[in-house]
Structures are given as structure tokens and as C-alpha cells.
């Protein structure tokens, strides 16, 4: 699916939507089922790894909303991730487990508030300038955590007790059990995808896509684009906050580096690698980025060579990211070179000109 192309033919669109929905259901079912296979003690690690990958997927999804749908290429997205993680660490009681729901609310509020303030300022700039100003603000956040003693300075700080998630009546979730935590993250991912899908099919989402392609025209049509963009920016920050919160409770350790530009850069790479303008792309990007690095590093100590090579090959062969792999395989590479100038900057969505081709 690719909501960048607001569906063309109703009929085809409905089929595509169905196929997409089915794809997500299957993917989530597989993810939910995996722990049932990974039961051995030594498999615990893989459960945790998958949890972490899903957290990164949430993070990438939150950025996809900005990059892929709103055209706001932020290189400071780690700031909101880190803000939530730090908020979690600082709100968590020292003496015993905290209430997870309360911490979650605190973390999300903190990251959304930060995104609101930063967004209100950075949205004055565009393009590469926007990239760099978001980076600048993220670096400021980084240095605040790094150079002041609010939360352990450069050493970072610990969450000594994993929070509990009381469900009315009982304590269904105890995240000390990696399995429970896994499902908590799973739930987070499902919720994120669902919310984003809803947002993107709404008028708000369509307006964002319009703004991404031509902001001037949207203003001429009567959209107060600044408010839309700010809304998207805060939503992106909020979801990044969800990822940051989950990260903090998974590892119980936060360090300024999670706010560094490397972290922001990684999220951006996941989005691009997977495919700009596609939710599945963000998830795919996160999974492949983390898991491949994982795998390559078991092969050789020069694993980054493999990673670099993989990325280069992916860019060369899959201009629309990993999500386009199936369609590229299907259509062969016949039209890879066809993209005639005039069709714009290559910002074309993942299913280019399928209608003209059918014509």
C-alpha cells in the first residue's frame, strides 16, 4: 500500500486496501505467535531482540509520519525519544516499581510538550534548513542531558525497578517477564500502526500529503499549513515518545547518546531504507536495519563493510526502498530506467504510473 498516492481508482483502491490490511494482520499475527516458538531459555534473547526491533519500528513509524507523509525531514527525532526515556527514568520511583501507566502518561506528555515547543520554532524553515535546525535542537537536548547533572550527566541513569502495569483488578502485566514485555511492545506497535493508518486516511492525513507535495497550493486552497504541520510534528514526537518510553523500561538504562544525532540518523536511515511514504516501509526498514546489523556482526568483525554494501546495493536497485522489492521483482527491471524527466524529482510514490501503464 502506499497512501502517498491517494488511491486512484476507487475499485482498485479498495482491493489494495484490503490486501494491505490482510498483510498487516498476517504480519502482526506472526509477530504475536513468534514467542510461542521461541520458548527455550536461550531464546529469551531473541524475544528481547524482537522487542527492541519493534520499539525501533515504532520510532521509525513516528518519523515516517513526518518524512514520508508531511515532508518534514527531521534529523532531530531522537530528542523526543530521549525526552520520553529520560522522563520515564526520572519519574520512576527509586524505591520500588512505579505505575507503568502513570509513567507512560508522563513520558508522552514530556515528549509531546518538547515537540510542540521545538516544532513551533523549526517550522519557520524549510528543506535542508529544516533538517539542520531540527538537528540543532536535538543537539541542545543532547547537551542538556550530557552536560548537566539532571540525570546522571554523561554516565546516564538507571531505572532500578521495572514498572508495573496494573489492569483494573489485577496485575496482568509484569514486564519483568520478557514475554509480557514483548506483548506490551507488540501492542504498542499495533496501536501505532492503527493510529497512523487512521490518521492517514483521514482528511488530516490527506492534507498532510498535499502539504508535502505543494505547500503553496495548499495555502492557496485555504489550509493553514503551519497548524497541520505542527500537529503532525507533535504527533510524531508523541509516538517517538512511546518508543522512548518502551526503550527505557526494556533496558532500564538511559544515556545521553540516545539523544545523539546518530540515533536520529539511524531512524532516518530506517525510514529511507524501508521506503519513504510507506508505513510498511518504516517497519521493514527498522527490522532489516537492526536484524541485518545483528547478523552481519556475527559473521565478521568488519561487518560494517557488509552493512554498507547492502545499503549501497539497496539504493541502487530499489529506488523506492525495501517495500518495493516485491513489485520490482514482479515487473522486472524493465522500467527502472524509464523514469523520464518531467515526471518530477523522483518523489513519486511507490506504485508509479500504474494507471498510465494500464492505459
Amino acid at each position, binding site marked *: 500500500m502506499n497512501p502517498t498516492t491517494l488511491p486512484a481508482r476507487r475499485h482498485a483502491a479498495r482491493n489494495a486496501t484490503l490486501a494491505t490490511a490482510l498483510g498487516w494482520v498476517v504480519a502482526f499475527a506472526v509477530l504475536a505467535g513468534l514467542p510461542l516458538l521461541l520458548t*527455550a531459555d*536461550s531464546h529469551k534473547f531473541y524475544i528481547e531482540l524482537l522487542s527492541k526491533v519493534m520499539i525501533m519500528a515504532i520510532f521509525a513509524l513516528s518519523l515516517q509520519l513526518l518524512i514520508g507523509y508531511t515532508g518534514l525531514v527531521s534529523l532531530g527525532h531522537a530528542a523526543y525519544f530521549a525526552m520520553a526515556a529520560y522522563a520515564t527514568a526520572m519519574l520512576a520511583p527509586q524505591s520500588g516499581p512505579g505505575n507503568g501507566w502513570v509513567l507512560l502518561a508522563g513520558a508522552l506528555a514530556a515528549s509531546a510538550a518538547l515537540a510542540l515547543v521545538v516544532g513551533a520554532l523549526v517550522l519557520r524553515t524549510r528543506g535542508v534548513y529544516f533538517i539542520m535546525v531540527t538537528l540543532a535542537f536535538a543537539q541542545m537536548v543532547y547537551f542538556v542531558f550530557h552536560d548537566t547533572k539532571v540525570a546522571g550527566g554523561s*554516565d546516564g541513569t538507571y531505572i532500578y525497578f521495572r514498572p508495573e502495569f496494573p489492569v483494573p483488578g489485577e496485575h496482568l502485566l509484569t514486564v519483568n517477564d520478557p514475554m509480557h514485555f514483548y506483548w506490551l511492545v507488540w501492542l504498542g506497535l499495533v496501536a501505532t500502526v492503527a493510529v497512523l493508518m487512521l490518521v492517514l486516511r483521514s482528511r488530516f492525513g490527506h492534507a498532510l500529503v498535499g502539504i508535502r507535495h505543494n505547500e503553496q497550493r495548499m495555502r492557496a486552497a485555504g489550509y493553514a499549513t503551519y497548524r497541520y504541520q505542527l500537529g503532525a510534528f507533535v504527533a510524531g514526537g508523541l509516538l517517538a515518545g512511546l518508543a522512548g518510553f518502551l526503550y527505557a523500561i526494556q533496558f532500564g538504562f538511559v*544515556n545521553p547518546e540516545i539523544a545523539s544525532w546518530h*540515533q536520529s540518523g539511524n531512524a532516518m536511515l530506517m525510514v529511507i531504507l524501508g521506503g519513504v511514504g510507506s508505513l510498511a516501509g518504516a517497519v521493514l526498514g527498522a527490522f532489516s536495519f537492526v536484524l541485518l546489523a545483528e547478523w552481519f556482526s556475527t559473521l*565478521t568483525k568488519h561487518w560494517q563493510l557488509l552493512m554498507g554494501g547492502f545499503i549501497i546495493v539497496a539504493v541502487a536497485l530499489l529506488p523506492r526502498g525495501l517495500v518495493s522489492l516485491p513489485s520490482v521483482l514482479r515487473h522486472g527491471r524493465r522500467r527502472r530506467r524509464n523514469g523520464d524527466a518531467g515526471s518530477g524529482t523522483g518523489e513519486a510514490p511507490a506504485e508509479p504510473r500504474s494507471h498510465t501503464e494500464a492505459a
Partner: protein
Amino acid sequence: SASAQTAAPAAGAPAGGKIKVGFMLPYTGTYAALGNAIENGFRMYVQQQGGKLGGREIEYFKVDDESDPAKAPENATKLVKRDQVDVVVGTVHSGVQMGIVKVAKENNTLLIIPNAGVDEATGPLCGPNIFRTSFSNWQPGYAMGQVLGERGLKKVVTLTWKYAAGEQSVKGFKEAFEAKGGKVVKELSLPFPNVEFQALITEVASLKPDAVFVFFAGGGAVKFVKDWAAAGLKDKIPLYGSGFLTDGTLEAQGNAAQGLETTLHYADGLTNARDKNFRLDYAKTYKLQPDVYAVQGYDAAQLLAAGATAVKGDMTRKADLYKAMGGARIDSPRGTFTLSKAHNPVQDFYLRKVDGRENKVSSVAVKALADPARGCRL
């Protein structure tokens, strides 16, 4: 050199199988050379024991920590949970170390720190399963403070990277130096790993101190020493530092480093037989000169051996294992050392002077210096 030994599919190792050692070290990035040296040292000792410790063979697992603290907990988890190692050996970078300590404590996995000096690891975060064969950041600084205090210097400026290793090093220095009646008149710093020193060098010169004390390492150390000399201050204001300033960097520093004095727990030109053999073997095995990092790796293996031998290879007898390790006397190339209550080496600190390509020992700055282990409740 030691080739990559990688994770076998994790399966519950049968008792009496191999001891699983997990290296969590930087194999890429700025500290890659240090990570390699540590691994080399470790492997060499094991080799010398015929590949066995406590009667059991050793199986290695490796994770590249990339010196990235953000990935530290996850990477450490890899070794602990996926590979289910008996002992984690790592790492170089203090920030990453904090993450490893956290994971080790949570899982009660044996951890041997072969470099990172972050004071907390053997301070507030100390634990029965956490050991260090290197130093605490406080230590080399303290030793230098002692030396300069005894030399009767009064007015000293400090200069460092603003992060754990630098700040703690300066703290140690200040403690000793001011106890001896000196005064640190100004503490200058710049963000890690910034290497634009010129402004600060000028600032130091304008303060006209009796001496400066610095902490820098690796590429930054090379550049600092060269900039210092180029600014014409080398013969005007004496420059002192903790040993990392001139370790593994002399080739690059060239003339600019000649005559510099530093304090560290290791030096060139030590006279003990242990060191002579170590150096010969190392040079033979790896076609490289060993450095302090190799020594620390070597000693990490020795410390593990001490424990493994005591429990006859049964790594599940944790209490006995830790007890034996805590009480071990390590016959290190640096000279014999024991461990403090908090499991940090109680060791001699040498005053060294750069001579050609060597950090020649000139004297023992402080004998059997123990980290105060503030905040440790062991």
C-alpha cells in the same frame, strides 16, 4: 592474529563443557585498536595456559560495542542472554561500561572490566560479580596530584574532555594535589571528542600556571600534545597528564612528546621478569608492541584463571568464584596487584617520562594506590 570466533547457536552448555568468555569491545571506530589489544592480551594468556582455565577449554564470543552507549545494554544482553556466557570481558568506553554493569548486575553475570575507568563501576555500582583489572579514573589523576604536590607546585590548571573519564581523572588529581597544599586555579574542559584546543591552550598560557594537568587519549591526545608544542609552551609551562596522553600515541606525537611526564599503572622499561616475557611473547605472537591495554586484557584472563582454578572450572559456584577472584594476587606485567574490596586493582602507579618511542619508568609515584570506592557497599 586472533581470528573472529563467532557465536555458535546457543544451546545450554553441558556442565564441564567449555567456559564461555564474551568479549564486548570496540572493534570499529576510534577505540578499535584498544579493543583489539585487550583481546590479544586475553587470548595470549589463555594460550599460555594451553587454552584451558580451571581445567576447561575456553570458547569465545564477540560483540562489537562500537563505543556507543546507546547500544550498550542491548549488546551486553546479547552476550548474557543469547550466548549465555560465563563471563563478560569489556569494555573500553566508560559510557558503554555503565550499560554493561547494569546488565551484569541484573543477571548476576561475572564481569571483568579490562579498561574503562568509570569510578561508579567500583563505586556506587560495585557488586560481588564486578571486577576490574585496569584502573579507576580517579587513580592515575590522584597519583599525578601526589607527584606535583610533592614537587611543591602551587598553581595548576587542568584541562580535559568533559565526560566521565576526564572529569573523574581531574577530580582525583585535585584531591591529591590540594591535600598537599597546591591549588587548582582553573578547570578547563571541552566536549568529547572535540579536538580544537587552540583557544584553551591560549587561555592556559594567559593564566601562567606552574603546570597543567590534562586528560586526553587516542587521536585527541596526539593532537593536543602537538598543538601544545606548536604553541611554544612545551618549555615554558610543564605539561603533565594521566598516562593515556602518551600511550599508543608516541609514534604519531613524535618530538612534541619528548620529555613529557605522566602517571599510569604501567610503563616501558619495567624490570620484572614477568613483563619481559610478556613483551617478548606478545611481540612474537602478534608482531606488535604491547601496550597498557594489552596488559589489562592479559590480566583479565589471569583474574579469571584465578577464579576458575579455585572452583575447578565449575563456573556455577558463583560465591566461591567471586571470593577467589576478589582475593587473588595477580602477577601482572605491571607488577603484582591485589583487588580492593570493591574489586578495583590496588596497584603501584608509575611516574613515566617519554624517551623516544617509550614511556620510560622513572619512579613509583604512589605505592599500592587504592581507589577510595566511595559509595560502594560491599
